[in-house]
């Protein structure tokens, strides 16, 4: 209990003193996770929607695989990305290992199936509602996908936020591909792991509270910006 209280105190101290290291790793956490979220959303939202409206031979198998990929172990993803980006790997020449870009790649791989799967579920229901109308209006596939994404944007926001939640709290993969290098690839989660390992539980807890506050802040900000609970919306 004392350690939790000390953690809260440490969090306040770090925040109100605008600790330079804290600001740096917080901004890096945001940069990595938000970039991964944007990239994953660009892939997953249209793919999940396409999957909802398209009928093809291996559709069921594709959906089952996508759902299974939601549970991808981050450590395994980290290991695979590490091998791909390491000097002897196929993309080693790009020199991306132990950079924020490598961390973004790992996070994109982890959260894309999650966002795509939730998108597919949501869009399947909306497609059932809109199907006859959009067929009747002679819409192209592209127009159908665009319409579903636009009209289902509030549900898709939930999918995106779930992806962000997974990304910002992820530690296994980014520890492997980022290396937790101070002033280079250290983010909140890897810093917590480091401080816990060092036995500085108060600082680790403090960083943990900052992480939770950050996740809540981003969620509130996105909800406020998209006006999900505004009167008169759906």
């Amino acid at each position, binding site marked *: 209990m004392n350690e939790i209280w000390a953690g809260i105190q440490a969090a306040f101290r770090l925040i109100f003193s605008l600790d330079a290291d804290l600001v740096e790793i917080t901004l890096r956490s945001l940069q990595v996770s938000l970039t991964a979220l944007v990239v994953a959303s660009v892939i997953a939202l249209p793919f999940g929607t396409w999957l909802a409206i398209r009928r093809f031979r291996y559709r069921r198998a594709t959906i089952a695989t996508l759902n299974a990929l939601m549970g991808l172990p981050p450590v395994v993803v980290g290991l695979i990305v590490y091998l791909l980006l390491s000097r002897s790997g196929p993309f080693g020449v790009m020199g991306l290992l132990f950079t924020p870009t490598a961390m973004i790649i790992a996070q994109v791989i982890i959260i894309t199936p999650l966002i795509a799967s939730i998108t597919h579920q949501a869009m399947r229901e909306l497609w059932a*509602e*809109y199907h*006859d*109308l959009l*067929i*009747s*209006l*002679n*819409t192209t596939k592209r*127009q159908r996908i665009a*319409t579903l994404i636009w*009209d*289902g944007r509030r549900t898709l926001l939930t999918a995106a936020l779930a992806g962000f939640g997974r990304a910002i709290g992820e530690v296994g993969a980014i520890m492997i591909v980022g290396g937790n290098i101070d002033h280079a690839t250290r983010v909140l989660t890897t810093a917590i792991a480091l401080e816990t390992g060092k036995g500085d539980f108060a600082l680790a807890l403090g960083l943990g509270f900052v992480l939770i506050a950050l996740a809540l802040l981003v969620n509130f900000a996105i909800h406020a910006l998209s006006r999900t609970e505004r009167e*008169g*919306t*759906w």
Partner: protein
Amino acid sequence: MVEAPPSVSLSGALVKRRGKTILGPLDLTLAASGFTIVLGPNGAGKTTLLKVLHGVDRLSEGAVTWSVPDAQARESQAYVFQSPIMLRRSVRQNLAYPLQLLGEDKASIAAKVADWAQRIGLEDALDRPAPRLSGGERQKLALGRALIRNPQVLFLDEPCANLDGRSTREIEALLKAAQQAGTRIIMTTHDLGQARRLATDLVFLLRGALHEQGRAPAFFTAPRTAEAKAFLEGDIVE
């Protein structure tokens, strides 16, 4: 004014779902003009016939042949469903949607939306969410959204089912105006009064089969089949 609508023929049309025959086999030709009412009791195949003609449902056997190429026929049609499907958008955006699909410019869309909002009596509700409109308002919006593209052929599936007298009258007025503007209308109903008010010709279906087709006055005064006669007399026909 819309261009002259195409005519359509069904030959050997058969629709089966899970081994059960829903419609047909039937051969039917509908002329290029007029107001055709498809009459029949529940389960007669009225909605299926309309959806097959419009291309929303597929035939199990047979063919639908329009007097113009299929793609051209599809582009010039609109469909109003029995339960109006509202996009999760405002009334304004619902009206604008079909025009946006056609790539019309914003000024033209705004002018047409304003015009049609007035025609359907929703000019004061333009910024309201369409899914929150009343049943009558939703049906009028669905009709306005269908007519805003000036379709040559308009399909309506029981558009006045569950509506009160006032809403029904307003919708019928819109349909008459559309017909006078040159739109070919094909509509299902089991409301005989409405059929008498609107139809120029009739198709009578029973258990998925075509029982009678002809001019409306002849159908109402001298039906040729016993089933049609019983239906007109208000007997229960199944």
